[in-house]
């Protein structure tokens, strides 16, 4: 970085074209990979993706140029993104399977962004994100089924309950680190899952059924969505809802990352003792990372519960936590964009590689080990903060 001539700042016109074109290409790629049905087409698209990453790696100015362009015309970039997200279901049409994949990918993106506060920003291992996700889902489902509480009201309640849980698992992090802390989070995860499995009021291993669909201004989310005469399947409701949650997660991540809180997390990732010497209350910031993680995960859990309308302890196991962890590691620790890409890739790819459907977990395992050994920084490594200054 140092000593190299700073890349030319793109002009407004060039930046606008780039910001729009690159996002459309990205969306088109996502559309294609969702559309194709296994076989050679998938392999071809994967090869294309590989080529893309190879180019990004060999020609670092591409990434610099992209970031500079987006920074130059942020409004254009954001409007383009919004239009693409809003328009996507119209291209998908009545294919509910694709919409389902997109919803799951969006929820995983939220979970991965949640975990990223710990794993990416602060380097705290947490194998209990799946449990926070489950607590969110169960709290809101129980409220809705037993007390008829509306979905919109269960959202904040579930989030608060999970945040409390986050604080509780965070407390041992004041006393323990690394391996020991990992074990504490695993233990919490197992305890939560076992309790869900054994309590009668959580439905035991059978879980909870018949979670009512939410409704907004009299429109039930179980009904098809009609916009300007276009009829979208009912999944589209949840697609937009989850997309909104992803936006909330991105804004949260972005604001925390850019504030003194994100810096404090990064400091304790790099050197805990030096962080203490700068006056950072290390214990508090660790607990905080747990709480923020649980808060966001609970939102995802609530939407998931109302979307599938049936939840059981099996949806929130240790393996779910590992899956989320894989997404963060593959996408790129402490890189918001990377984490989202990781979540989408790892949700959609295993589904598309139908021939390997049975080998999904094996694939995850090998991918994690491979990345940690060959490219521990992930597909999109973290970037230095720039503060509006020249690079």
């Amino acid at each position, binding site marked *: 970085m140092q000593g190299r001539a700073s890349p030319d700042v793109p002009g407004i016109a060039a930046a606008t074209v780039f910001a729009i074109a690159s996002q459309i290409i990205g969306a088109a790629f996502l559309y294609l990979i969702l559309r194709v049905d296994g076989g050679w087409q998938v392999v071809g698209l994967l090869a294309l993706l590989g080529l893309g990453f190879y180019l990004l790696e060999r020609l670092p100015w591409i990434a610099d140029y992209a970031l500079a362009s987006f920074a130059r015309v942020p409004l254009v970039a954001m409007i383009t993104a919004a239009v693409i997200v809003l328009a996507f279901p119209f291209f998908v049409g009545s294919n509910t399977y694709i919409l389902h994949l997109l919803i799951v990918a969006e929820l995983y993106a939220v979970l991965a962004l949640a975990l990223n506060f710990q794993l990416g920003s602060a380097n705290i291992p947490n194998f209990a994100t799946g449990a926070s996700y489950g607590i969110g889902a169960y709290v809101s489902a129980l409220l809705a089924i037993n007390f008829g509480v509306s979905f919109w009201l269960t959202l904040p309640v579930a989030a608060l309950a999970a945040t409390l849980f986050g604080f509780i698992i965070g407390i041992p992090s004041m006393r323990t680190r690394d391996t020991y802390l990992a074990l504490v989070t695993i233990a919490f995860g197992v305890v939560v899952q076992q309790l869900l499995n054994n309590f009668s009021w959580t439905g035991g291993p059978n879980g909870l059924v018949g979670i009512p669909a939410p409704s907004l201004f009299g429109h039930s989310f179980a009904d098809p969505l009609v916009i300007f005469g276009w009829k979208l399947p009912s999944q589209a409701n949840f697609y937009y809802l989850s997309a909104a949650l992803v936006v909330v997660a991105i804004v949260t991540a972005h604001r925390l990352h850019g*504030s*003194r809180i994100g810096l404090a997390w990064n400091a304790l990732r790099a*050197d805990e003792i030096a962080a203490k010497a700068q006056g950072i209350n290390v214990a508090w910031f660790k607990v905080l990372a747990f709480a923020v993680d649980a808060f966001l995960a609970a939102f995802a859990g609530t939407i998931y519960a109302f979307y599938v309308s049936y939840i059981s302890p099996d949806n929130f196991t240790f393996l779910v936590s590992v899956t989320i962890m894989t997404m963060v590691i593959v996408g790129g620790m402490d890189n918001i964009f990377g984490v989202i890409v990781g979540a989408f890739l790892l949700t959609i790819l295993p589904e598309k590689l139908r021939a390997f459907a049975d080998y999904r977990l094996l694939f995850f395992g090998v991918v994690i080990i491979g990345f940690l050994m060959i490219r521990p920084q992930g597909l999109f490594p973290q970037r230095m903060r*720039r503060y509006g200054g020249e690079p």
Partner: protein
Amino acid sequence: MSALLKVENLTMRFGGLVALNDVSLSIDKGAVLAVIGPNGAGKSTLFNVVTGVYRPTSGRVTFDGAEITDRPSYEVVDRGIARTFQSSRLFSDLSVLDNVIIGMHTRTRTGVLTALFRPGASRREMAACVEKAETLLKLGSGDLFEQRYRPAGTLAQADRRRLEIARALASQPKLLLLDEPSVGMDDMETDALVADITRLRVQNPALSVILIEHDMRVVEAFPQHVTCIDYGSKIAEGDFAAVRAEPRVQEAYLGKAVAHA
């Protein structure tokens, strides 16, 4: 005028090992105190106890009129003590600029709710930090400012030491603890370091500095108050000439240093 920092009868034991044995010392506002002594004498342990990294076995530390024995590090830093580490513990994967901004942690206030719901306030705070950090980086010797977007881990040794000092100053300390700041510096860089410390004191006459040093040329530059520690005990104090003349000091420290030189 009463002392800014007062250490009374400090003892620190690790199991059977006595790292500090009944050490007392004090430093006035605006003064420089040099702590010398052989490797492993307990000098860094002294810093670790003062800054709350270790809890002392017994003894009292008072700073600026308040007792800070056993207080957590973040409170100690907030009260106005900043330090550097002998082994320069920078946040190596963060930029030089970020390292300094993190140093301002106790002087900034943004919490989660502010960051989330009043992003403007959070952004303004960061912008002010960036400005202050850039000023600090321009201040010292070397060209840290030009390297401000480099990862701290890639800096040359002398720059690492300078960055640690800049990071410590970022917390606007009343007392600066420097743990062997000249390690890894050549003669010219060491002279620049002495000039940096001297200039700091001119700009901020109230700033007190405790200096752990091996390089006698640095100690000589601040000769009024020198304390020598050996095997965890204070064996001499006074001005540089007096401490140097002390036979126990020569035996424990200078003698060996001279013999090696």
